[in-house]
């Protein structure tokens, strides 16, 4: 006769992902690398913004991990700027996980003090839950998406440290209220930093680069203090 018994587990469901993320974070910190996880809905202008960012960063050593369900289109666009890029196709998967990113990092073999840009699958839901070992999630929200997107998908904007309010060159043609975008972002995340950008005109990109450079310097200082 079989007897039933209880086994205590007390383990996070994402604990496996979190272990991979912790390993990625350690590997990045050891080499003073700044990694950011770019999250947004499809079509927010992530790749265009990233290409512009790479061009304006000039000689800064960097690499890109591109996540999409299918195609290598985005990695091709990034490589056209001269930057190194690796494409991760998630197939049916709706997000990148820390294991995929760890693999991609091994392939990239990043130089010390590099920047690593991880462009997540375009999706305002799932990528919010998965730590990749990054310094920060950066949410890109374009002005064509509607002011209420932060309220509809609060988890993503709560998880992000910075929101890039993108395509602001289009704002005059779209009947949108940029202040309302900002108010809604702050409603779901009172500490979020907001930078208004246009990848097309270059507006706001310097402020974004300034944030990246400050964070990379902070990484090197932490590394030097060890």
């Amino acid at each position, binding site marked *: 006769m*079989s*007897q*039933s*018994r*209880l*086994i*205590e*587990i*007390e*383990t*996070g*469901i*994402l*604990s*496996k*992902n979190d272990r991979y993320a912790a390993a990625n974070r350690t590997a990045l910190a050891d080499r003073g690398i700044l990694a950011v996880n770019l999250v947004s809905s499809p079509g927010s202008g992530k790749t265009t913004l990233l290409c512009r960012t790479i061009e304006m960063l000039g000689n800064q050593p960097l690499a890109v991990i591109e996540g999409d369900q299918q195609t290598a289109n985005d990695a091709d666009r990034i490589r056209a700027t001269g930057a190194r890029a690796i494409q991760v196709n998630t197939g049916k*998967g*709706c*997000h990148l*996980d820390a294991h995929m990113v760890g693999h991609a990092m091994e392939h990239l073999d990043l130089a010390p003090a590099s920047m690593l840009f991880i462009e997540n699958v375009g*999706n305002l*839901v*799932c990528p*919010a*839950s*998965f730590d990749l070992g990054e310094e920060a999630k950066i949410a890109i929200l374009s002005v064509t998406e509607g002011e209420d997107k932060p*309220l509809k998908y*609060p*988890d993503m904007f*709560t998880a992000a440290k910075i929101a890039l309010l993108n395509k602001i060159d289009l704002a005059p043609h779209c009947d949108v209220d940029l202040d309302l975008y900002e108010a809604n972002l*702050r*409603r*779901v*995340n*009172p*500490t979020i930093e907001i930078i208004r950008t246009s990848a097309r005109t270059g507006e706001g990109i310097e402020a974004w680069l300034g944030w990246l450079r400050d964070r990379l310097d902070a990484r090197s200082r932490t590394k030097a203090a060890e």
Partner: protein
Amino acid sequence: MHEMSLAEGIRGIIVDAARRNNAPRITRVRVEIGRFAGVEKEALAFAFDVVMRGSPAEGAELVMIDLPGQALCFDCGEVVEIENRLDPCPACAGTRLMPQGGDDMRIKDLEVA
């Protein structure tokens, strides 16, 4: 939307635990889900049934325990409990609330045979 990945995460952990405890069959799994974990419970229940097929947890009961959501109100500075992510602060009616915990997804225990 990622409930399938969550179910796969659950499967890995519980099958491993059952093996270590020499339990051939898992009959019940209790998980704690925070209000702000972004988990669609019906989708997780469906994914659980599908993903456990062919494993020692096939046919196991999934029990989901809700954990309350807490948030820090940036208007009054209190940590308050809220039902829904966009609810106003019950103390001051402020609307700028930052979740504090409540995004947990934990496997609590297993019943094995």
